[in-house]
């Protein structure tokens, strides 16, 4: 029984920039241009669905990290593990090949990342807004340079307007 890490190493070869055992999942970092190729290879191993598509904004490094957490349903041995397929993309020009054509389960999650971060998934079959209104989505709310106020005293509440709505 070879370990999962070796299996991945064997399958992806020198596509891997870094492979590490994070808490709860095995993280494989691949370069952006090799992402689709690696995804196809990983799927052939038996990883059949995407659990989550995550983007993290590293504003200081001017990078986004996009991680696909993938696992398996049909292969019981693989279903005990979660594999993270990560890649780093440029923050100013956020384009990434879409994996929704490989894993259908990524379709809605990529749409969500698109509207929250403004990351454009090239080749996505149906890249539209999902949760937000266009006005809010334009803020790209999950980026780190969008800051919500956390001080409850300074929250603007127009109580004069509130009084004006009392009726009868």
């Amino acid at each position, binding site marked *: 029984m070879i370990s999962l890490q070796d299996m991945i190493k064997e399958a992806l070869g020198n596509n891997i920039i870094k492979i590490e055992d994070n808490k709860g999942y095995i993280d494989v970092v691949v370069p952006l241009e090799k992402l689709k190729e690696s995804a196809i290879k990983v799927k052939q191993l038996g990883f059949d669905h995407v659990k989550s598509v995550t983007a993290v904004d590293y504003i200081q490094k001017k990078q986004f990290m996009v991680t696909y957490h993938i696992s398996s349903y049909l292969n019981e041995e693989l279903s005990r593990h979660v594999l993270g397929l990560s890649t780093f993309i440029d923050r100013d020009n956020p384009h990434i090949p879409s994996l929704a054509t490989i894993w259908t389960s990524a379709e809605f999650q990529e749409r969500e990342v698109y509207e929250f971060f403004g990351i454009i998934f090239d080749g996505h079959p149906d890249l539209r807004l999902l949760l937000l209104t266009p006005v*809010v989505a334009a803020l790209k709310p999950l980026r780190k340079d969008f800051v*919500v106020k*956390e001080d*409850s005293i300074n929250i603007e*509440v*127009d109580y004069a307007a*509130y009084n004006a709505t009392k009726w*009868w």
Partner: protein
Amino acid sequence: MGSDNKEKKEERLNLLYGDLDTVAKMAKESLIKGKIAKMVDWATSFSLWPVHLMTSCCGCEIGAAWGPRFDNERFGSLPWVSPRQTNLIIVEGTITKKMACTLRIVWEQMPYPKFAIAMGSCALDGGIFYNSYNIVRPWQVIPIDIYIPGCPPRPEAVARSIIELQKMLKNKSLASKWILESKREDKKYIIPKEDLCGWRGEKVDLTTRYD
């Protein structure tokens, strides 16, 4: 005195000829004098049908409040499907910017006399999501009669709000007042409809019935 009598005579004549305005006025006057006004308030207070408008997580407790244990149907209140046949909105928690338009449209679709209960601290002032970038205070969208604090409020609190609304209806005779005045005194909404519904991109009909 003499001119008064003349007017009264004219009114009666109008009744014969069929001046509908006068007839409506006289009918309204008889409403004030008679017991019909009280009857209307009584009937409305025991027939507060909330519209099915699930807005957020307090919906769980709404389900429980009309479930067997708390059974708000005891107060004659029956959750109903279509806004046209109901007279109560229960705002169940947070209103997001996407939902606000729907809330206003549903409110406008309901026939008068109608009432609104804001349930949960999110509906009061944002609650735990007070600094979220995607929420709207419900009182900015529709006029609210009663607030229920709590996150989420217990079903007993929902029942209490129905009882309080019944009391309010009877004491202030809200329902019959609408029939008499045929419009609400204050029809202002804080956020205009074009702001709420503008994102939908469709042509919003801004001339509501009350302008």
